[in-house]
């Protein structure tokens, strides 16, 4: 009949659902400019840019940001290496225990974050490992592997095996094939996986509270402010900046994979 026209109720329900998802985030952008200091009063009594300058001169915000970027960068590199290797093994060959390997990779995000967190914490306590940047990285890299893995596996599946055989028939050895045939094919998938892994690590707070000790990543800094607010306007500005920054990777992922059948960012 009229299968290409959606019923009105469905349209309203879908639009309502999407508005429910987006309006709260937009609110963050208004609050960053409010002149109100002590409460969350709406509507904002006035608008100002003052808090951006105040935030800019806060060393604790910069330190937390630096730590977050450092942790996310190291974790992303580790996840890229481990995830790509694992994806190459799983998608190229069938072997005993293949399903177990995929399960092992997915497990860190399938189980609640608090389980991963307390597990690492109790391992550190049993093994007497002192908290440091590296204990944070250990946790982050572990759950970032799956993001890279998912993207790489999808791309490996679409890269035809005959392409690789052709390259080797024409006299290229395995490393030349890797350099000139496999890598150019994988590049965008790895960039997307890397960006999303970075975003995941940059924003992670649940596991980090268990592995950070006294150090503050940006999410931990924000959590402190949410539990014990000190200067609300600064929190507002940081929240807006974080909201903007975390949108970039998914926009980039969309831009790089549009036109393919791959849906980036599916498995968070």
């Amino acid at each position: 009949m009229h299968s290409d026209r959606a019923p009105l109720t469905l349209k309203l329900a879908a639009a309502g659902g999407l508005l429910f998802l987006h309006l709260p985030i937009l609110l963050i952008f208004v609050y960053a400019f409010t002149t109100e200091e002590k409460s969350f009063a709406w509507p904002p009594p006035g608008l100002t840019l003052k808090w951006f300058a105040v935030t800019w001169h806060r060393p604790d915000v910069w330190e937390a940001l630096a730590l977050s970027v450092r942790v996310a960068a190291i974790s992303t590199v580790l996840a890229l290496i481990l995830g790509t290797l694992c994806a190459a093994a799983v998608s190229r060959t069938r072997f005993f225990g293949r399903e177990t390997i995929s399960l092992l990779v997915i497990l860190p995000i399938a189980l609640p974050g608090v389980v991963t967190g307390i597990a690492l914490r109790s391992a550190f306590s049993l093994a007497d490992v002192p908290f440091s940047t590296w204990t944070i990285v250990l946790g982050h890299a572990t759950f970032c592997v799956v993001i890279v893995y998912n993207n790489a596996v999808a791309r490996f599946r679409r890269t035809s095996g005959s392409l690789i055989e052709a390259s080797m028939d024409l006299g290229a050895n395995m490393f030349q094939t890797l350099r000139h045939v496999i890598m150019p094919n994988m590049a965008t998938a790895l960039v997307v996986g890397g960006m999303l892994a970075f975003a995941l690590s940059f924003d992670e707070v649940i596991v980090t509270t268990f592995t950070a000790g006294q150090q503050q990543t940006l999410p931990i800094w924000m959590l402190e402010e949410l539990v014990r607010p000190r200067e609300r306007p600064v929190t507002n500005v940081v929240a807006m900046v974080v909201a903007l920054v975390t949108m970039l990777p998914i926009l980039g992922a969309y831009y790089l994979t549009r036109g393919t059948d791959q849906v980036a960012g599916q498995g968070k």
Partner: protein
Amino acid sequence: MIAARSESIGTRLSDMLWRRPAVLLVLLLLPPVLWLGIIYLGSLFALLLQSFFSIDHFTGLINYRFTLSTYAELFTPANFDIILRTVTMAACCTLASAVIAFPIAYYAARYARGKWRAVFYLGIMMPLWSSYLVKIYAWKLILAKEGILTWALEGLRLNWLLEAYLSLPVVGGNSLSVSTTGTFIVFVYVWMPFMILPIQAALERVPGSMLEASGDLGARPAQTFRHVLFPLALPGIVAGSIFTFSLTLGDYIIPQIIGTSRLFIGQAVYQHQGIAGNIPLAAAFAVVPIVIMGLYLWGAKRMGAFDAL
């Protein structure tokens, strides 16, 4: 000369690996399996081990002897309440997420074409990937007593309705930001996007002609939904519910920021390991979501939910 020589080493190595794919496979798998096996499984094992220890309540030190007494503590009324409350909350959130996510997923799968496909894709992905804490913070702004919700209800002359609702037991409280309802709203908001994509994937496999056939055979839209669309979407809904259920089960930050002082499993884990230093009890609490999710995944697998992932 050196270049030619190193290339021949490369070629020889590559020939060797080509003839022995098992060696290549082991080389590929070794780093990730070692990492995940030692760091992740090792930690899970340490967690399991800790849960069989106990704490000496007088000295506050951990007693490294095998015992089941820590698990027995889970069944004291206060602790069992925490587990029950968390599971109920996770179930309610999963249900509400499915109801809100379904129309979005259905529209995206069946009607969104061309430009609208991109709009829906980004419309679903951006909230999914935007910062977790920022999302919680946004709701703190909305639900605060002086916030936008109260303002809007006052504008509509409906604030008596909110007052009446807040005076209800269990779900009510002083203001929405310190009530169980507030916790529920934020849980649904934060985890609902995880439900949309699996449902959408399941619905995209339903041919439009099947729904038309159902209508042609005389089914009203509600009947088509009940007997054709819903059963076909169910594996997707179950797949999505794995995420919403598991994530709600283990979250301890949302109820800490928005909600009452009554604890959830995640908070119990955090408090026992932190302030109390009772890692064994924290570990035993953490085993609860693992067991529940294990049962849940087993059930979901039997319903064929993994094909929709």
